[in-house]
């Protein structure tokens, strides 16, 4: 008699009894029930459309973004010096082939304020630097300027430029010879002047704050990236540690789209809240209009759970119809949008399932008040179409400020 099995059976029996009743009242009370279905269909459409739009936009934007050109597979950088711990940890990581310390600094120069990147001479000599004049810097005291910067400042190879750095209120100065003009292909560091890392660090007493990492295989880049991200969490690394890979812009694009659409999520949530209120109203109305038949059912021996099952079944059937209608409507709309407008939508099974779960949740939340009223109302109150109070204690009924239902 007791236990989940018998409960299930009891509920099944209950459904068998109330099913024909619920089906019948769907037919006879089409306006109210239609409104429930409409509210559910509306919110489902909104949800699916929004999710499809979001997914499509995110994908399209991510595809649009140009991957970064980097001196290595990964660049690890920090606002503060990296510290030996990070560099050794990186060098020890199994999937890392090489780690080259580098440094990036903002300097005040005789040709304005500029960011200078100090790299391993091996990287500077590689084919990643496109020279328009002169050669790549190889030793301390040599600098390569972006061609555009040099043109603006009126500089050419062989000129001597002054560099200084302000840190902690102290100014340090140095000089360098322009040995070449050109473009680095290091997208992320585009527009920066290039020097040899050691020379730059010695001149301004800098510690490495960039590491250029080469992974042993292209497939392992992600593994190394995860490794560095975990370093940040473990406290072994300084705060502000960041990993940049060729795919970083894509990640940024995705998060940007997410940020833009956060207000859209709020709107969807609002749609659901409003729809819930609407459904609550309709179910409440259906209760108000049916007090007498509900009273008869109670008098005939329907217990509270039977009545609850009855009302819920009726609502659920409408919610399912609304859900299907919403799915069809959003499907049609998505097709139409994709075909006739510049927008693109990408429906996913996940969003459809979520929409289904949300609409059922909506229904059950909205059903609470009418079901509770039905449960608490006495048979006589229902039969005589009297007002029903949420709390039937004398104080509540006596006050009657809410007017009852």
């Amino acid at each position, binding site marked *: 008699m007791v236990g989940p099995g018998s409960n299930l059976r009891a509920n099944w029996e209950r459904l068998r009894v109330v099913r024909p009743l619920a089906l019948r009242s769907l037919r006879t009370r089409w306006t109210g029930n239609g409104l429930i279905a409409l509210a559910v269909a509306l919110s489902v459409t909104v949800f699916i459309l929004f999710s499809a739009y979001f997914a499509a936009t995110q994908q399209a934007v991510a595809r649009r*973004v140009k991957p970064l050109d980097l001196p290595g597979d990964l660049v690890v950088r920090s606002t503060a010096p990296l510290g030996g711990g990070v560099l050794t940890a990186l060098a020890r990581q199994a999937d890392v082939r090489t780690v080259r310390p580098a440094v990036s600094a903002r300097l*005040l120069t*005789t040709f304005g*304020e500029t960011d200078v990147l100090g790299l391993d001479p091996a990287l500077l000599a590689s084919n990643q630097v496109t020279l328009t004049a002169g050669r790549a810097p190889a030793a301390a005291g040599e600098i390569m300027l972006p061609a555009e910067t040099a043109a*603006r400042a009126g500089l050419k190879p062989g000129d001597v430029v002054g560099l200084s750095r302000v840190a902690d*209120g102290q100014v340090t100065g140095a000089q360098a010879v322009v040995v070449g003009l050109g473009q680095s292909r290091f997208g992320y560091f585009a527009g920066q002047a290039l020097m040899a890392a050691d020379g730059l660090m010695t001149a301004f007493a800098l510690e490495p704050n960039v590491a250029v990492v080469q992974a042993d295989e292209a497939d392992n880049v992600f593994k190394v990236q995860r490794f560095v991200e975990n370093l940040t969490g473990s406290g072994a690394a300084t705060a502000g540690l960041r990993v940049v890979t060729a795919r970083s812009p894509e990640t940024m694009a995705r998060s940007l789209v997410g940020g*833009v659409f956060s207000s859209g999520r709020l709107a969807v949530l*609002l749609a659901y809240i409003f729809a819930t209120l609407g459904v609550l109203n309709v179910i409440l109305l259906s209760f108000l209009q049916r007090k007498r038949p509900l009273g008869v059912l109670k008098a005939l021996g329907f217990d509270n759970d039977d009545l609850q099952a009855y009302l819920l079944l009726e609502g659920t059937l409408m919610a399912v119809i609304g859900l299907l209608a919403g799915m069809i409507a959003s499907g049609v709309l998505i097709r139409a949008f994709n075909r006739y407008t510049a927008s693109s939508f990408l429906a996913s099974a996940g969003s459809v399932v979520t929409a289904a779960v949300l609409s059922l949740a909506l229904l059950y939340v909205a059903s609470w008040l009418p079901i509770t009223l039905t449960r608490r109302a006495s048979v006589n109150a229902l039969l005589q*179409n009297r007002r029903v109070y949420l709390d039937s204690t004398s104080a509540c009924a006596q006050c009657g400020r*809410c007017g009852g239902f």
Partner: protein
Amino acid sequence: MIIFRLALKNVLKNANRSLLAILGMAIAAAIMTGSISMRTGYVNPAFLDYRRFMQADVVIYPKKLHVDPGAVRQRATEEWETVKYQPTFGSDLLSLEPRLADEGFLAPPGGDPDIDLAALRQALAGRANIAGVHPLFTIPAMLSAQGEGDAVPRFYRVPVRGEDVLAAKSWGGGPPIAGGRALVPVDEGSPHQSPQRFALVDARSKAHPQIPVGSQMKLFFPAVRREVAGRPVYDWSDLRAFTFTVVGHYQIPTGSSPLRTEEGLPVVDGQEGRSVIVPTYWDVPDILVPSQALAGVYRELGGTAQTRADQVGISLNSMYLAKQTAAELQQAFPNFGVYTVPNLVRLAGEGVRAIQTDSGDIRYERGRDQQMVLPADLSRTFIVLSFAIAGLLVATNMFILTAQRRQEIGILRAIGASSREVFTLILSEVIGLAVIGSLAGFLLIQLGVTFLLFFSKVSLAEAGLSTLAATAEVVGLSVLVAVLFGLLPAWEAARSTTAEVLRHE
């Protein structure tokens, strides 16, 4: 007429139920008004302080910053790169969003690194709703200041920014002052005599030690090495010293935030055990000097006249249309970043956290960036959505109202009211409730907006006109919705026969 009187009486008699309907309508109207006001964006009072600081309603920054995800399919070949916002751009955008320089941002191809003033003025001429163009010039400088415990003065890199004190008169002054006084036109000095120079410094900035009001401040500016197309190339190896008198401290509030420790734990008031909420401020390193005085400094540095601005502020005739104008400007100048000041306020204010350092000072940390704009079709969808759902609420509410009065309707019919009269009764009730509700919701939001409009020195006629327009929009919309969705319950009520209604009881 008796029908309408009855409708009014019913609304009053069923006050509780009517209130529910009114509330639903008010929420809907508030959302509608909110979304319309979003167009103006004046939801945050902090914007007024920014407006005075920026001297603009819309700000144009060099470089294209906005990416419109909605336009992804339209410009199919456009590829977005990651670029960093360089300090040479000279605008104050970096102090609003430092991550633009640190991590870079997604940029569509093209985008000018500075703004050609003459071309911009020409392009703006004849455009509606533009009241003034306020170019911003900054000169980088080194501030020499002696902090507590320093044996010798230290050096701090600061931007020195020109404030248009002459124009500021009509704007209600510059930024809010925390101590001392604001800059006044007389501070511009005379170009013919050796000028005494005056400046404002940020009361909250942690970029350099605090400089007391009334004290002298030494600024070293780099000489202008050469000018290329009206843009200076500074030589930092050749610094010229200028002395300024600090006449006041300014501060720009952004809102408030619970105070947290460096570890992220909330700081709790010892006695009451409540977490401490402190006002938050924008940490601006800029030193403000009168713009004419700054132009004088520029000439002494060896420059002639700047024809290219670091950023340009645009003041508008009607702030009600600020967002719309900004969108038009963005379209006209696709190579620049165009922001409304309210948008900037959000950029600067959102996610500002107050952190108590170990020494007991309060430091402000900045939030996230908002580089993308909401696609237009998405925002249109929101309006349609709130429309439909508000209507649904009205309809269901009216169903309840009529259901609870079936008996009364039956009696009406029994004493000879026609079904058309019952229909009119219910519909006029719906409309009455919709008007009351929407007005309530509308007034709640619009009062705030109007209040801000009033204080933002927009002409009263302009404010009144825009309010009227908004009223018509919202109330008209809600009445339309009410009629549309009120038809069903009214028809239901009119359809019911006397016998059906009176049979029970």
